[in-house]
């Protein structure tokens, strides 16, 4: 029953995403003046009579407003995203072809960000004395700079150093080619690593002062043992809870990184769609990004269950957490 409630909450949030995206698109199309023109590629589009008739028909533009809205909602809700205006191919096929490449990029970047953040937190935790304070202070500074660093600039600098000057890594990337993946993944990972490191450093300090850590130390646990067996697991929970949001922002970063490294993917598709004002393609890409986010949240819940045994004992908590995540 609990699982059913939790699943319902997640399905509910997926449906809500579809509704919100559709509503934004509907009102934005209306606000842009002529919705027909916007769908067919903006002012000065070379749409033929036939294309105009098809668009008018599929979007029900000669129908009452409410009906138009419901029609759009129904089509997006059932993932009948129609054909891309610019490419004359089904939107769903275009997205399916590009999605794996972007997911690979974002997943590798999240893994690298976690590794960097863990290293940073452990170094900050284990460095002591005046030298240690200097190390911690510079880590803090690095975290802030990493967090605000625009990815389009960071990536350009990396290309400059490693591709143009040293010539050790390619400046372009495609598919799963390992050498080409290095620079895009690093570019994507660094801002997220800064963000996760701040959270992890704080929660590690908090866990260090918790009664269970004091007890373990009183029983003679070494620093390393305390870290590996007790505090690290504890400290990773808040960062884990925010990783779903972090994955979303990685998808945002993928838009920039894929453009910079000329890498095909969902982000590039979105950029091209926005550039050509290919509204059906853009709606499809946004809905898919939002659905990926919902799936990532589900995976995040499962991982939290794995790391935190307290949640397993009290499954009710998960349901409550799922409610919180969808904003109840």
């Amino acid at each position: 029953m609990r699982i059913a409630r939790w699943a319902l909450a997640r399905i509910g949030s997926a449906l809500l995403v579809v509704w919100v995206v559709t509503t934004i698109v509907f009102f934005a199309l209306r606000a842009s003046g002529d919705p027909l023109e916007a769908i067919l590629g903006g002012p000065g589009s070379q749409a033929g009579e036939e294309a105009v008739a098809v668009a008018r028909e599929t979007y029900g533009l000669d129908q009452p407003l409410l009906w138009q809205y419901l029609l759009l909602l129904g089509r997006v809700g059932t993932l009948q995203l129609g054909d891309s205006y610019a490419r004359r191919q089904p939107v769903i096929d275009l997205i399916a072809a590009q999605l794996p490449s972007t997911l690979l990029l974002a997943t590798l970047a999240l893994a690298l960000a976690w590794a960097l953040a863990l290293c940073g937190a452990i170094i900050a935790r284990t460095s002591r004395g005046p030298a240690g304070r200097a190390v911690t202070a510079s880590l803090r500074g690095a975290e802030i700079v990493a967090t605000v660093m625009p990815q389009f600039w960071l990536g350009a600098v990396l290309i400059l150093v490693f591709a143009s000057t040293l010539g050790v890594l390619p400046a372009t990337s495609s598919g799963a080619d390992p050498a080409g993946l290095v620079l895009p993944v690093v570019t994507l990972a660094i801002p997220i690593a800064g963000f996760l490191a701040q959270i992890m450093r704080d929660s590690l300090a908090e866990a260090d002062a918790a009664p269970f850590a004091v007890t373990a130390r009183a029983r003679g646990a070494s620093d390393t043992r305390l870290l590996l067996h007790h505090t690290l697991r504890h400290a990773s929970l808040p960062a884990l809870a925010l990783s779903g949001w972090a994955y979303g922002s990685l998808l945002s970063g993928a838009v920039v990184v894929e453009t910079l490294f000329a890498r095909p993917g969902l982000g590039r598709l979105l950029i091209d769609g926005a550039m050509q004002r290919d509204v059906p393609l853009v709606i499809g890409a946004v809905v898919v990004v939002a659905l990926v986010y919902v799936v990532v949240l589900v995976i995040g819940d499962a991982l939290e269950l794995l790391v935190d045994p307290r949640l397993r004992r009290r499954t009710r908590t998960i349901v409550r957490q799922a409610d919180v995540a969808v904003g109840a």
Partner: protein
Amino acid sequence: MSNPVAAPSLRAAFARLRPAGVVALVVVLAILVAAVWPGLIAPGDPLAIAPTDALAPPSLAHLFGTDESGRDIFTRVVHGTAPSVGIGLAATGIGIGAGLVLGFASGLGPKALDAALGRVIEVLFALPTLVMALLLVAVMGPGTGAAVLAIGAATAPGYARILRARVRAVAGSGYVEYARLEGTRRTRVFLRHIAPNTLWPLVGVATLGIGQAIVWVSALSFLGFGTLPPSPEWGAMLNAGRVYISTAWWMTIFPGLAIVVTATALTVLGRTAAGGGRR
């Protein structure tokens, strides 16, 4: 976690200014000077072309080098301060404005409205900023105005989320309850108690937000959706430098540094104002 209902004062904020905060304050003041009187720092014309000097590397004559038409990058970076920072400010203003409406409606309205708006805010917050901004730009068409509006709208859910939590904390606090029991009218309770105690802590969040908004809007310009070259705007300059990345590194490095320095200074300052809180 400090008491969420206590309002921080300006004096307390200054007392917290550590060396990093002082440096950040000086940098922000310098940026303001560059934005208001760019001619004071770089007297040249940011649009003046000199084809014979095209793609010249940094030298004493051209501190930051020149671009593909021989325009001086240093002059362009300095003159680009006002549009870049102004665009970031405008986008933050729109974001906070929309966030205020959503946050107050949700935090003070009837329970059903709060439940519905709360969910919508969460969903909007979940949509990646740039993805949502591109959705709006695709429908509205490119341009500076559209980029500002898109980033403003895309950042609004974040502000709404903070405000909603804040409004609920303040509205449920002892002094508001006391004022209500005393029979104070609702508008007066709102204006005298709820609004000031909700808005003041927003100063720090807004300062953080301006830095982020500058980065987001310049990202849109970099992707070719915001301000178009040859206008001296940092993101647009980076967009122009992309083609020359392997031959003219100065076209990319210097406008990017301007963004990084501005965003970092605003972030450090914002954190100080927000009392060391994050995000």
